[in-house]
């Protein structure tokens, strides 16, 4: 049986990273260019890693499926990025950011990783500022901060409502510098379809050129996956349409363990679903909860009335009522469940009754419309474009939606998977957010992994590989290439009756109902029975038109949906086996009388890392125990 060695350095928490950096193996600058590093993904994690490694002198090949690396999904992040700078002098510190993140994750993340994240957070802000990221500033010229959920200090840096865009453009500009210098070769519109493993080590990838359809192999000394999250398994999510699980799922099938796939985050503030045609959901940044108050009518009868006609005393500001100390800034999992609860009670608003109000009238009265416009203008505009409503005049209507995935490929402290040579960064790995991610900490993690962790830890693997170079002439490459080609041809040959999209919607709806905000043993068993049926029908009845040697968007989607149809099963299996509620994973059987999540630390204070053994239903669940030496496991309270 495989053992999971997290390689957490010994010594006191505050000294671990320092010690590990010192103990890590270095690659001599003159030798670096002899090593080829594949980076799949050009979001914050991938772009920062590729640029940094290129700068250090490695020979980098970087891939993304969009037409430009700067369009990676990180671009859509709105609200901000955390750091423990304590510029507002409100009591923040590395220790506090560490503790908030561990607690926010409902005590299901590794202490050492989270501490390191908090530790490097400040360097990220320095680095991004140096690269020209135009963070918001105060009149005195210093950087401004705002608050995000799960924290009582103001530690979030932001660039209007476009923080992800500005951070990615910053990382991309660094990447441009390296592309121009010739250290990074960029392959846009190129999709990774398989991982190549040689003698138990990840040594290359198989990709499809999305313009010409050509399927090709690339070899390297190590492969980095920074391919983002799998939220689109639910079909409707706040992710970009192209986000997929393909890269990580293919790696999983080649031996990489998938950790905690059931940890998915449902974000409380998104624009509600309004029709069957809907192709995606739009987030309204959590930062809005700094000034917006969440409420529903106290009485069911009032739900159909225009909000302005509902008197103050007939409104239930349920977050402020239930969580007086965090109020509207309660963490995401808690806020989402609270919204579901009031809607389940029949007090939801809007035509579908699946919505709650986010009301700015008090803030507008207090601060003036101009201040609110300055803070959130682009979000109000976006809301207007989508709904046709003016949120300066009527409250926004919001509802939870799938947003982020804490689960991902298992990695050790070096960010290396159990499969040697495979490193995983950003949302694609499982490492830092436990069972629930706090707002503004994904951007932090992506850039921490790429700028400040990977450049130090990559040497630990590469120095073991001297003289072990493989090329695409190795028979494993030809084999993987043939498999990918055969699968592509198979998809095109089915010529059934249903579109790819219709299968994706069917899977998504099933997962939302059975493995969404609330999960039960029964709902999960139902999903586990149904998913293989949908998958079987897909492989008999999908209609993928067009050709393989051409730009073919149906073919691209078909490959991704085929992988979601497999991955969804593992997600439900993991949710079934985790017989507790924690963070975003809410098993209805395990709750306190007041509806709060009930963890089972005795039996489940561990990471579940799944091994593929040829049949998803028989996947093997490995365990990495989580040892808490510095924080005390407690029931999370935001009251």
């Amino acid at each position, binding site marked *: 049986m495989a053992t999971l060695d997290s390689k957490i350095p010994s010594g006191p928490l505050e000294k671990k990273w320092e010690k590990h950096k010192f103990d890590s193996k270095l690659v001599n600058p003159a030798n670096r260019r002899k090593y080829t590093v594949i980076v799949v993904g050009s979001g914050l994690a991938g772009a920062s890693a590729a640029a940094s490694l290129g700068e250090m002198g490695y020979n980098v090949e970087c891939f993304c499926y969009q037409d430009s690396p700067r369009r990676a999904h990180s671009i859509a992040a709105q609200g901000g990025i955390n750091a423990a700078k304590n510029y507002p002098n409100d009591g923040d510190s590395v220790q506090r950011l560490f503790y908030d993140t561990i607690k926010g994750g409902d005590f299901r993340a590794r202490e050492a990783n989270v501490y390191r994240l908090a530790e490097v957070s400040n360097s990220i802000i320095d680095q991004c500022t140096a690269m020209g990221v135009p963070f*918001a*500033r105060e009149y005195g010229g210093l950087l401004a901060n705002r608050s995000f959920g799960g924290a009582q200090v103001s530690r979030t840096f932001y660039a209007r409502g476009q923080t992800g865009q500005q951070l990615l453009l910053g990382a991309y*500009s660094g990447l441009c510098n390296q592309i121009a210098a010739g250290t990074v070769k960029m392959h846009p519109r190129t999709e990774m379809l398989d991982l190549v493993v040689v003698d138990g080590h990840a040594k290359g990838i198989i990709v499809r050129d999305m313009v010409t359809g050509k399927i090709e192999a690339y070899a390297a000394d190590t492969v980095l996956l920074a391919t983002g999250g799998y939220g689109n398994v639910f079909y409707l999510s706040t992710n970009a349409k192209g986000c997929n699980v393909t890269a990580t799922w293919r790696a999983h099938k080649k031996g990489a363990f998938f950790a905690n796939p059931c940890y998915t985050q449902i974000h409380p503030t998104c624009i509600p679903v309004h029709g069957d045609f809907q192709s995606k959901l739009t987030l309204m940044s959590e930062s809005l909860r700094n000034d917006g108050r969440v409420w529903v009518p106290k009485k069911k009868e009032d739900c159909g009335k225009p909000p302005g006609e509902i008197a103050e005393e007939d409104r239930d500001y349920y977050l402020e009522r239930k969580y007086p100390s965090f109020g509207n800034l309660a963490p995401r999992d808690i806020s989402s469940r609270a919204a579901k609860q009031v809607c389940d009670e029949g007090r939801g608003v809007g035509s579908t009754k699946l919505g709650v109000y986010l009301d700015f009238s008090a803030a507008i009265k207090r601060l003036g419309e101009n201040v609110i416009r300055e803070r959130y203008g682009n979000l109000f505009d976006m809301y207007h474009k*989508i709904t046709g409503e003016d949120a300066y005049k009527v409250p926004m209507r919001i509802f939870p939606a799938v947003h982020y995935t804490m689960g991902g490929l298992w990695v050790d402290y070096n960010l290396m998977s159990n499969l040697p040579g495979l490193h995983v960064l950003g949302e694609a790995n499982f490492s830092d957010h436990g069972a629930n991610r706090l707002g503004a900490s994904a951007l932090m993690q992506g850039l921490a992994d790429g700028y400040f962790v990977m450049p130090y830890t990559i040497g630990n693997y590469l120095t073991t590989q001297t003289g072990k170079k493989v090329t695409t002439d190795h028979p494993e490459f030809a084999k993987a290439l043939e498999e990918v080609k055969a699968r592509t041809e198979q998809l095109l040959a089915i010529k059934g009756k249903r579109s790819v999209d219709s299968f994706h919607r069917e899977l998504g709806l099933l997962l939302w109902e059975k493995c969404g905000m609330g999960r039960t043993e029964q709902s999960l068993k139902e999903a586990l029975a149904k998913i293989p049926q949908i998958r079987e029908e897909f492989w008999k009845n999908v209609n993928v038109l067009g050709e393989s040697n051409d730009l073919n968007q149906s073919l691209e989607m078909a490959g991704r949906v085929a992988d979601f149809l497999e991955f969804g099963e593992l997600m439900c299996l993991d949710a079934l086996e985790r017989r507790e509620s924690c963070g975003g994973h809410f098993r209805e059987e395990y709750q306190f009388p007041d509806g709060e999540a009930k963890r089972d630390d005795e039996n489940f204070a561990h990471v579940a890392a799944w091994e593929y053994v040829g049949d998803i239903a028989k996947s093997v669940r490995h365990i990495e125990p989580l040892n808490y030496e510095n924080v005390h496991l407690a029931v999370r309270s935001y009251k």
Partner: protein
Amino acid sequence: MSHQLNLTLKVWRQKNAGTPGKFVEYPAQNIPTDCSFLEMLDIVNESLVQQNIEPIAFDHDCREGICGMCSLVINGVAHGPERATTTCQLHMRHFKDGDTIYIEPWRVGAFPLIKDLIVDRNALERIQQAGGFISARAGGAPDANSVPIPKQNADAAMDAAACIGCGACAAACPNSSAMLFVAAKVSHLALLPQGQPERTRRALKMVKTMDSEGFGNCTNYYECEAVCPAEIKSSFISMLNREYVFAAARDSVSMI
């Protein structure tokens, strides 16, 4: 409140750059006014698949107006009729029942067509790779508050930095000029103290690459500003012109 529309689409279809393209007519039926323009195309594509007709290829990803991937000319206007709105954020409530809608790709010499409504915009990337960055190695940066930046400068830099790099400016320009894009990129960094050391080099190299990529000259039509979804102001073009003249002068002095 949502209701439904029946529309006629005239869509540019072209197998690849080497094959001539043409407009093909498709009905778009029972389109809810709440859906976005791309969701309307999804509905049409779903019906094409049912008829075994290859779906219409178009670029998109985030569908929330920020990635800059969507790119359609709708009834002759890049990103369609709504001001400051990308195609993916354009909603069908802005159309009327019975409308005929022409849908075309960006038509710019420097953006070769790939298929149907998809073009290759790598020329924009090459402009940025020529100098659109600040060389700052990870790990060596000073404390972020060590250089205060007046709020109005930071705000102005952010106004420029908001460009989503979609290329609509070039698609709308009678000369196919990419000046607004380049102006946004150059101004963003020129307005910040961190951007000063490479300022001259950056402006010269980016403008030079813009020319060599085959984009046209700016002759002040301002069509770019009218279609720009990120509301980049044409005053940044004046700023780029000043940057360029200044940079060229500095450059010639340093050559002596």
